[in-house]
């Protein structure tokens, strides 16, 4: 199988360049379906084989982090999901769209692999519907995969991000849980999204509150609204000071928060933000020439993304291939 190595904290890790099991995300697929379409678009452009499995269930990570479902349930759900991945003929590399899925299912996997008795317990339950987790699933985050393909993607690009300033925001469940595994190294100041931007010729901005939480905080967004909103406000204000053309995010939760609440926050902030938000897959697809509406799915966004897209479309590097 083709793979490449990307730098992490100590040395590097191997990222497969093909054969993906598309591990979908609950929030992303419902609120920002353009992300799924964008990933499909990218995989097809790259000529990668991938599986979209209707039998995969939500990883339930949000519920777990919001203290709604117990850990045992979470682990068992994952044992079932892993058994699906293992049963794939060749597309055995789980690619999580969402950092919470990534952190959550990796944690479940470690738990199952580390405690044989827990694995047995979970396997007993999923055996009722004919499933078994053996311990072979491999888990990656889609950002790493895009980063690993960067050279080829650059060649495939229709537009460049030349002259455009992008503020990035990384997902905590990607950077903080398995911190030694974060692509490009420093988990305290992650820059893998900035690397993706730079690869397409754009500038990743260094704004002061870059590592601050997006303001969701899982259970806190449910029970501690005022606090989470103040955090978000601080984040947006600091970002706005550097005048970004785009906010690039990694996580569905952050997308939801930072896109949906910009307008409601205007009153509290006493200022407008108007920073368009895209996810890494959407930006990549856009640069590769995907249709902004049909593929990138900008109609489901709250802050208008069109002004940014117009700027991108001025930077044509290649004839646009007709895609639909």
């Amino acid at each position, binding site marked *: 199988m083709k793979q490449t190595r990307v730098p992490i*904290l*100590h040395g590097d890790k191997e990222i497969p360049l093909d054969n993906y099991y598309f591990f979908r995300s609950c929030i992303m697929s419902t609120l920002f379906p353009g992300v799924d379409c964008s990933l499909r678009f990218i995989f097809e452009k790259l000529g990668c084989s991938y599986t979209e499995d209707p039998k995969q269930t939500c990883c339930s990570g949000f519920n777990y982090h919001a203290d709604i479902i117990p850990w045992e349930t979470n682990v068992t759900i994952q044992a079932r999901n892993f058994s699906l991945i293992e049963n794939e003929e060749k597309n055995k590399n789980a690619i999580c769209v969402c950092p919470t899925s990534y952190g959550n299912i990796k944690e479940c996997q470690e738990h199952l692999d580390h405690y044989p008795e827990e694995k047995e317990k979970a396997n007993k339950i999923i055996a009722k519907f004919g499933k078994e987790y053996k311990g072979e699933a491999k888990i990656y985050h889609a950002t790493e995969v895009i980063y690993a393909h960067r050279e080829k993607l650059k060649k495939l690009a229709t537009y460049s991000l030349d002259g455009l300033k992008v503020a990035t925001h990384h997902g905590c469940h990607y950077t903080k849980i398995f*911190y*030694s595994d974060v692509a490009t190294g*420093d988990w*305290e*100041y*992650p*820059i893998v999204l900035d690397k993706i931007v730079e690869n397409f010729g754009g500038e990743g901005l*260094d704004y*002061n*509150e870059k*590592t601050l939480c997006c303001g969701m905080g899982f259970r806190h967004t449910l029970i501690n609204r005022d606090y989470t909103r103040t955090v978000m406000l601080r984040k947006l*204000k*600091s970002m706005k*000071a550097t005048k970004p053309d785009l906010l690039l995010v990694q996580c569905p939760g952050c997308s939801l928060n930072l896109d949906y609440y910009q307008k409601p926050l205007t009153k509290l902030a006493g200022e407008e933000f108007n920073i368009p938000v895209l996810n890494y897959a959407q930006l990549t697809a856009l640069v590769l020439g995907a249709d902004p509406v049909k593929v990138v799915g900008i109609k489901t966004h709250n802050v208008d993304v069109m002004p940014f897209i117009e700027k991108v479309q001025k930077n044509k590097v290649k004839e646009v291939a007709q895609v639909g």
Partner: protein
Amino acid sequence: MGDKVGVFICHCGGNISKYINMEELTKYALTLENVPVAENYIFMCSEAGQDLIKDKIAEYNLDRVVVASCSPKFHEPTFRRTLQETGLNPYYLAMANIREHCSFPHSDEPDKALQKAKDLVRGAVARAKTLEPIEKKKQIMNKDVLVVGAGIAGIQASLDLADAGFKVYLVEKDASIGGNMPKVLKTFPTDDCAMCTVSPKMNEVAAHKNIEILSYAELRECNGSMGNFEVVVEKKARLVDERKCVGCGDCMAKCPSKTADDYNQIGQRKAIYIPFPNALPKVATIDTSVCLQITKGKCGVCKKICPADAVDYEQKSQMVKLNVGAIIVATGYKEYDPSIKGNYGYGRYPNIITQMQLARMMDPNGPTEGKIIRPSDNKEPKRIVMVQCMGSRDDKPTGRKYCSRVCCMIALKHANLLKRDCIKDSQIDICYMDIRAFGKGYEEYYQRVQDLGVRLTRGRPGEIIGTDDGSNNLIVRVEDTFTKEFKEIESEMVVLSCATDPSDGTKEVAKVLGIATDDGGFIKEFHPKLRPVDTSVEGIFVAGAAQGPKDIPDAVAQASGAAARTMALLSSDIAEISLDKALVNKEECKGCDICEKTCPFDAITMVDLPEGRKAVVSEALCHGCGMCAANCPTGAMQLRHYKDNQVLAEVGALIGSH
């Protein structure tokens, strides 16, 4: 084959006897075959204990000895000497470690500990019987010494040795000797001028008839062993003739090419440079990576301007061969690179600097002529925050687990100097985890600094970020762990007290010399308490911050210690090298060269002999580590003191019946 083995069991003053029944163990030893005598005693390593061993050797005509006590690392040399004094070969000794391997870890299970002690003694007796005599090789002792690294530690060690009449070669990697001490401006706890203290010492070294300085030079090779090391030192090409250059500095003034100043760590220097005014030797050096004549082939300004005609673009580096009897490693430390931890903003925000950079700013002869200025706007900062434990005492993968020892005092010293001399109306905050003011006069210093109104916040900052108002100010986010409050301290400049890393040169030298390093990469001492300046190789000693973070008083004390150990070694005219090393059985060697590849000391070479390709071990280079023997597929390679039959005898007895 030994057939009279005496067993001597040590109480270790209770460390062993409190947990293991000594009488039972002694009785058991007497039941073993070929053991005519077994004794126990409170301190076998004491003179009385050793006399007991000697008496029993004579009384029973013993031909092998087992001592069951602590780790052989402590007292194997002691007991070998005891044997030697009775005329027995010192290698007729086997040790059973019933302390670190038994009484310490099994202190809660005395019955099982006794059983294990019996097993260990039985194994040692079985091995003892198979031990063979090993001789020592005698060589004339070379009395010259190589000191690597000319910081304060290397300088002190060189002076001690030279004053005692030994010839010293002092090798320094940089353009000037001195190391880090000349950079620190003033030294705690007395605040006396660092340069005024170290500069006379530098001059003394340069003038001493017994010391030869090889500056801008690096150790490349080392062969041989204690008493007779052969080393190769590369004298790098300065492109300036050291004998002609008068250090006038005209070339520096006119040189058109600039680069980052690696000595001051702030500002720039020229491609041709003298690192600091008191540099020694005070001669210019050309940095070939930025010199236009070298990189582009056109310029030649320095050559034209030099009144002494000292510039020589064609100069080549030279390999110098030296023979010495002992080596002292004093290659020092460097500051941890704080940009590794992105959340502290070093390298991204201009107004975050390190303590060393601040020290250089304070120096009237430094890059800012003693003015404290913010890199962003050259203005004097009034609010300064210092962040302690930057990268130290940190078990995250990017941190260093150990304490860097000096940074608490450095921060206090700098806070003191800022408040008293540099910016009297400044507000200084220090965020710390613990203040470790451990040395003589340090606690008193700490008290005085608090009286000056320096604010101390107990807590390790989580991050440092900029403000959005374009002022280039910074916000330090920290939890005050006394009040349990989150604080955001705004400041105009932040100073990081970085962890101490071994210098790059320390790591290189360790490799060339084949000496062991610890987890942090510092040179490992042979024994942390009893042999703190010896390294893993006989005849090679360590001094100063190369062995671990330390302040100047400790570095100097250790340097004198290393010099004294070196003198003790060199006081003998004969170097005795024990031959407990690897040995090849030529008949069984198939010439596969696995041993050659595994040897960490390059002690094995493959030679084509009439009877075929065979491995040959150099006695001088072999450390007796056993890697080759463990990897040899035919058993041809044997370690003389751990031959297969000896190890197997011990293992067989260990797993055999009780």
